[in-house]
């Protein structure tokens, strides 16, 4: 047996009755929602790109044995580089240099790295693979490049692989007598990191102790040996001063302190006007669309005078009529909002996968998280629903106060 009639049946019937006009209204709402959502999506994605770029800048300084400088090489056209990892070097220091570095004012983070060896591992790569040890707990240089965050902190027997290393996540990798599990993969860095694997320092010492791993011509690796300490400077500190202080703090050990030569400042400046631009466009569209939607709502109310008069003659109270007009507008706004958000999400994803957003925004576009997308969609829906309800307030008020006798007799006059 069918259900009894309810207000929703009634509202839906009203909407179905004028498909053309209601489609146009839905389109208006969809356009507004799409604009707000896209704007927020692009702003958030671009900001994430910059944030990630900054976190991926790695260390501000690398503190290494003085011989290290002869291995210094650049990764970009201007010989600029971001310090992500130490370079393959046989010169090592003991990890207690970190005690000294930690005492220097302005140092906010530091993490040791150890180059173990370069191995031919055909199962992993056609090129020789650099093997590094690092401390996952203090690391701030390697893990920001992870394509997907690790499910748990890197455990013993687990490794992180560079972009060009073969093997799926969770698959096993055999190096000498040890079997490791691939726990994470890095994004491309366009540097030697792409062809490297990273394991915990304790695993690195165990592997280094295995015969045939470390070049017999190089000094052996003992626990506590490291090749370099990556150092990050606290925000607001003068990098030159902190670098000089690190140098001065090592009077008896000969170390070198190498600073990075790459900055994201120009990129940040390029996109700093983006939020303002996109938000301004959204505001202009909302302001321009509001009277249009209000006009449509007023037209609908006028057109339905007779219907409203009939409802009142049947006993509909003012608040019922008011609610019906508002509810119809809200319904159209919600439908339009959902369509707008979904359509723009699909379009933005297509543009992103085609790389178009990267070239337009001049940065590597990072898709916002699902939570962020959810809140942006919520914001867009909230705005269109607010517009819908506010725009129909006056027509709803007028309609609800309409005299039923006049409404029935004067329709269309």
């Amino acid at each position: 047996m069918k259900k009894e009639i309810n207000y929703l049946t009634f509202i839906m019937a009203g909407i179905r009755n004028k498909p053309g006009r209601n489609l146009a209204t839905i389109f208006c709402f969809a356009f507004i929602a799409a604009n707000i959502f896209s704007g927020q999506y692009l702003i958030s994605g671009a900001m994430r790109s910059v944030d990630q770029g900054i976190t991926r800048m790695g260390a501000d300084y690398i503190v290494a044995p003085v011989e290290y400088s002869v291995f210094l090489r650049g990764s970009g056209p201007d010989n600029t580089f971001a310090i992500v990892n130490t370079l393959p070097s046989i010169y090592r220091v003991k990890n207690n240099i970190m005690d000294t570095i930690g005492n220097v004012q302005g140092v906010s983070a530091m993490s040791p790295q150890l180059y173990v060896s370069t191995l031919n591992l055909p199962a992993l790569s056609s090129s020789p693979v650099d093997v590094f040890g690092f401390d996952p707990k203090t690391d701030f240089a390697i893990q920001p490049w992870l394509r997907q965050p690790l499910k748990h902190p890197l455990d013993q027997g687990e490794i992180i692989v560079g972009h060009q290393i073969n093997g799926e996540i969770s698959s096993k990798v055999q190096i000498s007598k040890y079997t490791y599990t691939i726990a994470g993969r890095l994004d491309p860095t366009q540097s030697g990191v792409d062809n490297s694997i990273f394991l915990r320092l304790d695993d690195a010492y165990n592997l280094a102790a295995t015969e045939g791993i470390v070049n017999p011509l190089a000094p052996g690796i003992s626990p506590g040996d490291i090749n370099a300490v990556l150092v990050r400077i606290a925000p607001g500190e003068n990098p030159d001063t902190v670098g000089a202080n690190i140098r001065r703090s090592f009077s008896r050990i000969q170390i070198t302190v190498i600073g990075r030569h790459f900055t994201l400042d120009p990129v940040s400046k390029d996109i700093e006007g983006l939020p303002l631009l996109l938000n301004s466009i959204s505001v202009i569209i909302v302001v321009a669309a509001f009277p249009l939607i209000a006009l449509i709502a007023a037209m609908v109310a006028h057109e339905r005078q007779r219907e409203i008069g009939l409802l009142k003659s049947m006993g509909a109270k003012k608040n019922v009529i008011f609610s019906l007009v508002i509810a119809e507008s809200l319904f159209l706004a919600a439908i339009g909002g959902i369509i707008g958000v979904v359509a723009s999400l699909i379009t933005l994803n297509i543009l992103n996968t085609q790389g178009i957003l990267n070239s337009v925004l001049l940065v590597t576009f990072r898709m916002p998280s699902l939570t962020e997308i959810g809140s942006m969609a919520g914001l867009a829906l909230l705005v269109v629903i607010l517009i819908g309800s506010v725009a129909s307030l006056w027509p709803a008020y007028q309609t609800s106060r309409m005299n039923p006798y006049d409404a029935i007799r004067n329709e269309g006059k």
Partner: protein
Amino acid sequence: MIEVSGVTKTFRTDCLEIQAVDDVHFAVQPGKFILIFGRSGSGKSTLLGMLAGLLRPTKGEIRINGVDISNLSDDKISELRAKEIGFVFQFSGLLPTVTVLENILVPTLFCKKSPGSRLRALELLKKVGVSDRADAYPCTLSSGEMKRVAIARALINGPSLLIADEPTGDLDVDTEYEIMELFRQLNREGTTIVMVTHNPDLIPYGTQTYCMERGKMVEKPGSSSFIKCEPGLDNHPKPKDLP
């Protein structure tokens, strides 16, 4: 019981004042079939609008079951309309966007929920003779069918008063006869009916008839415009073109 005392309705525009209803007095006892007869513009529809609470009188008092509706708030009048008054318009008055059955059920939205309204709507459709059109949309109905559905809708909340404003004005003679018979049947079953018409042929249907002229209620027994019919007499007119 309806009591109308000294009711006047004046419409004012910038340069014009029209006294549509002028100092009207009358009473309607429960179970009566009141016919208000008059020419177009005589004020009968305005009077009906005031009886239904759709218009407020400029002066005077209208009491329905003892309640003076002239001074009730809009919401109270709406409540009263939903419970106590069924209205049948000259035009079909059906909502084009919903089916016949849904049209009949619309007034139940404005009354306190009573279970079984759908069943009652189906019974009413059967009673008015259009039970086969329950799922049809109004645009597919004939004028007579529309009127029958409108009557069923007016009765769905079980009103004590049925008001009809020229309900046969747009119908052919045969259909007019059928609709008037339906009204008579409803009246015999106890529904109080107040109907206005400009058609003198319908006067015999009323158990009590009033005439309106230029906003005034005229009751002149014996005059051509006033006929009082005794209930129970088979004095309704037959369609002139029937064999």
